[in-house]
C-alpha cells in the first residue's frame, strides 16, 4: 500500500461500468438452454480460496477491531463492554484531533500540488516535443522507489545539504533544516509525497489527454482559440473524469500517509507531523488498543464519506461543463 498512486487507480472509473458490463455478459449462460444455468463445480474451487482468505484476513480483523472499539481492551488480558465511551473520548482527545487536522491539511495540499503538477506535465509530455519516451520513463521512476528509503534520502538533503548550501551562499532561510521547525516540517513531507505520487497521476492524465480526438483541437484552432483558452475550455473539461479519479484516489492514499512521514520526521518535531495512521499504531505499543480502534473506525467512516462527497461534488462539476 505504499504505492499510493496506482494499484487503486482502477477504482473510481470502473466500479459502475464493470457492473453494467457484467449484466450484459452472456457467456455464463453458455452451458444450458434455459433458466439459470448450472454452475460448474470447478468455479467454486476457483473462487472460494480467495473468498475464504479475504474473509479471514480482511473482513474478520475489521469486525473484530470494530467490536473491540466498544470495549476497554488494552491489547491483552480481560476486557468489558463500555459502549461508546471510547468514541466520546476520541472526540475530545487533543492528540487525535491535532493528528486529524495535520493529516487532512496535508492531504488537501498534497492532492492539489500533485494534480496541478501532474496535469501540466502531462500536457507538456503530449505536446510537440522530442525524446518523449525517455522523458516519460524518467518521470515514472519515483513511482517504483520505496517511500521510506527515498524519505531518508530527502531527509539528508533537507537537514544537511540545504543548510550547508544556505551557509555557503548566505541565504538565511536555507540555513535551518525545514524538518526541524514545527511550522515548516509539513512542507518537506508534502514535497516528498508529491515527488513520489506525481507519476501515477501523470500516467492517468496522459491517458486522458491522448483520448481527446484531434478534431476537437482543429475546431478550436478554426475558432481562433488561444493556447490558454484551449487548455481551459477544451482540454480541462474533457479530462474532468480523470481529475475525479486522481483526486479521490490521491486523497484516500494521502489520508493514510505513513512511510514517508516516518522516514522524514517520525511525527516530529514534537507531534506536529503525526498522521492519523501513526496515532492508530500507538494503540499497539501504548496499550490503547480499544481506544485506537475507535479512532480507526471513525477514520474509516470519515474516509468513506469524503470519497462519496468528492464523487458527488466533482460529478456535478463535470456535468455542468
Amino acid at each position, binding site marked *: 500500500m505504499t504505492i499510493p498512486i496506482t*494499484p487503486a487507480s482502477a477504482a473510481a472509473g470502473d466500479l459502475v*461500468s464493470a457492473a453494467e458490463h457484467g449484466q450484459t455478459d452472456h457467456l455464463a449462460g453458455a452451458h444450458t438452454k434455459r433458466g439459470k444455468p448450472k454452475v460448474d463445480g470447478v468455479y467454486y474451487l476457483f473462487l472460494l480460496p480467495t473468498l475464504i482468505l479475504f474473509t479471514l484476513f480482511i473482513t474478520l480483523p475489521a469486525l473484530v477491531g470494530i467490536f473491540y472499539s466498544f470495549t476497554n481492551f488494552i491489547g491483552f488480558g480481560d476486557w468489558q463492554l463500555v459502549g461508546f465511551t471510547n468514541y466520546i473520548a476520541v472526540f475530545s482527545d487533543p492528540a487525535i484531533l491535532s493528528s486529524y487536522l495535520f493529516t487532512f491539511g496535508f492531504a488537501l495540499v498534497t492532492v492539489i500540488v500533485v494534480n496541478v503538477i501532474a496535469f501540466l506535465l502531462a500536457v507538456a509530455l503530449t505536446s510537440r516535443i522530442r525524446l518523449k519516451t525517455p522523458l516519460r520513463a524518467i518521470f515514472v521512476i519515483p513511482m517504483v522507489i520505496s517511500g521510506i528509503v527515498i524519505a531518508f534520502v530527502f531527509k539528508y538533503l533537507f537537514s544537511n545539504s540545504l543548510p550547508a548550501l544556505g551557509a555557503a551562499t548566505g541565504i538565511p532561510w536555507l540555513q535551518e533544516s525545514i524538518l526541524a521547525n514545527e511550522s515548516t516540517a509539513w512542507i518537506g513531507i508534502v514535497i516528498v509525497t508529491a515527488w513520489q505520487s506525481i507519476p501515477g497521476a501523470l500516467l492517468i492524465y496522459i*491517458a486522458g489527454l491522448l483520448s481527446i480526438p484531434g478534431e476537437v483541437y482543429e475546431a478550436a484552432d478554426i475558432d481562433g482559440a488561444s493556447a490558454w483558452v484551449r487548455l481551459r475550455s477544451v482540454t480541462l473539461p474533457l479530462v474532468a473524469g480523470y481529475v475525479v479519479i486522481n483526486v479521490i484516489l490521491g486523497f484516500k492514499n494521502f489520508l493514510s500517509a505513513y512511510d514517508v512521514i516516518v522516514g522524514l520526521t517520525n511525527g516530529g518535531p514534537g507531534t506536529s507531523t503525526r498522521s492519523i495512521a501513526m496515532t492508530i499504531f500507538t494503540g499497539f505499543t501504548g496499550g490503547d488498543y480499544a481506544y485506537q480502534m475507535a479512532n480507526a473506525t471513525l477514520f474509516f467512516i470519515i474516509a468513506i464519506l469524503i470519497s462519496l462527497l468528492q464523487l458527488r461534488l466533482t460529478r456535478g462539476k463535470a456535468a455542468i461543463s
Partner: protein
Amino acid sequence: MTQEKIRTATPATRSAADKGSGDAGTRSTRSRRGKVGQETTNWPVMIILFLCALTVLLPLYVTISMSMKTTAQAVDGNAFSLPAPVDFSGFVEAWELTNFPVTFTISVLVTLGTVVGTVLLAALASYAIVRNWEHRLFRWSFFYLLAAMFLPFPVVALPQIQLTGLVGLANPVGVTILHIMFQLSFSILLFTAFLRSIPLELEESARIDGATTWQTFWQLIFPLLAPMSATVAIFAFLASWNDFMMPSLIIAQADQQTIPVVQNIFQTQFSTNYNVSFASYLMAMAPAIIVYLFTQRWVMEGVTQGAVKG
C-alpha cells in the same frame, strides 16, 4: 457523467497504448497538427521538462554519488559533489550491517510469494466471477472483494497484528498473505475487465473438443491473460518490495525483517556514516528500478488501463 466520458475515451486510449507507450503520443499529436504543417519542436516546453526531470534524477544522483564516497568525504555536507576518490567500502559495510544476504532473501521470498499468489488467486477468482455473473454468489463476491480498495490498511492494522500473532503468522509469511489480500481488489478489477473482452467463441471450440473448465482455464484462458498478468505482477512486485508499513508492524522478530524496514538502523546507529547508509539505500532501491527499466511498458499500460478500462 464522468463514467460516461471515461468509457467513451477507452478505445482511443487502448489503441494508443497498443502502439507502445512511447510513440503513442507522437502519433496522436501528429494527427492533431499534421495538417497545419507545424512539426517543429516546442523548445521552451522541452527546457521546462528537462528541469523537472532533474528534480527526479537529483535525489537518485545524490544516492549514487554518496554511496561511493569515503566516510570522510560523505560527512562534509556537500551532497552534490562527485566522489573523490571513488570508494566502495560503504557497500561492504552496509552489506554486513543490514545482514544483506538474509534480508534480501526474505524480501525476495515475500515479494515472489505476493506476485505468484496475487496473479493466481486473482486470475482464478476473476474467471469464476465473469463466467458466472448471473449467479448471486459470484456477482456479490466481486463487489465484496472490490470493497477493499476503499479500505486503508491502518483501519484494520491493529486487529491484523493481533490475529497474525495469535495464529503464528507474525512473520514474513503473514506479511506475504496480507500483501496478496491488499492487492486482490485492483488485480481482480483488471482481470475481470480483460476477461470480458475475450470472445466466447474461443472457449466454445475448446469445450466442443471436450475440454473441462479446469483445462480450458489453464490451457486457453490463463495464457491469454498473460499481458494482464504481467501488469498485475509488476504492481504486486512494487507494492510488496517497497512496503514498509506492514512488515514493520506484522513481523515480530527483528532479524526476519524486509529490506525497507532494516534501513531504519541508519537512523539510530551509524548515523554519521552517510556513505554506508546511502550504499544501503541504493541496494534497497536498485532491484525495483532494474525491474522497472525492463518492464516499463507494462507499468505504464497498467496505470492507463486501470484508469480507463470499462
